[in-house]
């Protein structure tokens, strides 16, 4: 490959953000996308172990799981679901803004996504605080009131709450990481690093964000809606 000495000619040949292990931007873009998809597959398997264990115990201890589910706040859970779906919308709009070169819109939608993410985390924190108050945290403070578990076998209610906390905490951790990623993306957008030719980081961040949203779409009914109160 001929050496290009002048940096300006170099910039003309390769757009900003080009990484030299690749042959061209197209290869880089495809590799980045494939990389994120492969990573999301690993995340599916990561959560998958928890979902599989949940499925096994739920089939063994349905009354306890239903009793535990009824102790969750469906309204807050549903609100969080709407918030996350909304944030996926704003994320998709951010990607579109990047594709069409609209820097201000990009920053706006990224910030909006982060705000909605923060709302989600705030509501989650509130839920956790309530559970703590009621003594529903296995291992740390498990002292539920008699009426609360309604004669359901206590062991399996405790198992349910193990899953509730493990699964939602793992999800929340991914949200926090996503929050960090969005911060970085916002800063980079502010600095004008993205353009219609190079917006791959926004796109793969969007993929990650959508994935975290989808995990919640599965968590919400499995944890909040199995109480049979409808």
């Amino acid at each position, binding site marked *: 490959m001929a050496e290009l000495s002048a940096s300006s000619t170099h910039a003309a040949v390769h757009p900003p953000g080009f990484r030299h292990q690749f042959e061209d931007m197209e290869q880089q873009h495809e590799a980045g996308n494939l990389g994120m998809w492969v990573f999301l597959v690993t995340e599916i398997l990561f959560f998958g172990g928890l979902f599989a264990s949940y499925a096994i115990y739920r089939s063994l201890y349905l009354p*306890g799981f239903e009793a535990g589910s009824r102790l969750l706040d469906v309204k807050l859970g549903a609100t969080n679901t709407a918030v996350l779906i909304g944030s996926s919308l704003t994320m998709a709009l951010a990607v579109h803004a990047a594709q069409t070169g609209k820097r201000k819109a990009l920053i706006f939608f990224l910030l909006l996504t982060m705000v909605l993410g923060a709302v989600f985390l705030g509501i989650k924190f509130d839920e956790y605080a309530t559970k703590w108050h009621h003594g529903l945290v296995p291992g740390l403070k498990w002292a539920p009131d008699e009426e609360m578990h309604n*004669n*359901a*076998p206590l062991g*399996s209610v405790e198992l349910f709450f193990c899953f509730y906390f493990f699964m939602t905490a793992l999800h929340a951790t991914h949200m926090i990481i996503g929050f960090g990623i969005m911060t970085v993306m916002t800063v980079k957008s502010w600095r004008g690093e993205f353009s219609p030719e190079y917006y791959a980081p926004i796109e793969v961040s969007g993929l990650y964000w959508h994935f975290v949203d989808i995990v919640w779409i599965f968590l919400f009914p499995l944890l909040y809606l199995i109480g049979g109160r409808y």
Partner: protein
Amino acid sequence: MFNFIFAAIADPWFGFPIKPEDASTTASSVDHLYYFLTALTLFFTFAIFTTIFYFMVKYRRRMPDERPKAIETSTALEVTWTVIPAMLCAFAFIWASSLYFRNSRPPNASMEVFVVGKQWMWHLQHPEGAREINELHVPVGVPVKLTMTSEDVIHDFSIPVFRIKHDVIPGRYSSIWFQATKTGTYHFFCAQYCGAEHSGMIGWVYVMSPTDYANWLSGGSKGESMAQAGERLFTQLGCVTCHVADGTGRGPVLQGLYGHPVKLRSGETRVVDEAYIRQAIVNPNSMPLPNYPPIMPTFQGQVNEEQVLQLIAYVKSLGTVEKGTAK
């Protein structure tokens, strides 16, 4: 025929044992399968090694710039060496599985022994009352069913001369069976790592003639049978206040219950077996009944696994003796 020859050579091989004695009805059939697999392994290993050696010598490089002609792939060869191993595998699978299947169910007339493993010893109870630690006395020629559980971690009860073993798991019962064919003294081992003294958790099986066994059983200290011990616990722990024989108690009648199916409040039907009774004792509200409020307290922590087995023996005895007056 081949198996007979192999067995004659193998046990022991030039005075050196390469397999345990076969002391049970199933041991030699396991050995035969083992010999077949060994022959298969040795044959293919030998065949591959010699072929490689032969090629290495015959096709060694003679000139430094030698360039052998390309050899075309042969589909016929690929198919052959896929199909033949597949058929050998199928043969081994069918043989091994049918043997396993046959050995998986204890004969109906089995004598029972109850085994509790705990770090780091084995407690064994005979229904007639004899209790042993790290020893198992059994009569020859009688099928014996071991029902086992653990007090703490996962153990494994392994008797090499019978070619059997099974994990011993807390919270549930596992069972294996054997029928000894030779009197003698044989090792048993814990075969699932269980902590510091795992390698000390070993003992002896004493296979005795039926007369010697009967003498052993009735000799020693006159203790109570498992069912009697269970009855004593039943009163001590207060079970008798709710589980009244005439049906006037708050809890279900246990007479004649053992072995019968019951329908739970959830709609599921379960058979009242050992596992059911254990669960009812340690976690009663996990399976509430339709006509009774779930007010039975749990006895987890108040009884150890041996005592649970005694209570189960008592409930079993109610089933058989009181059948005529069962509700």
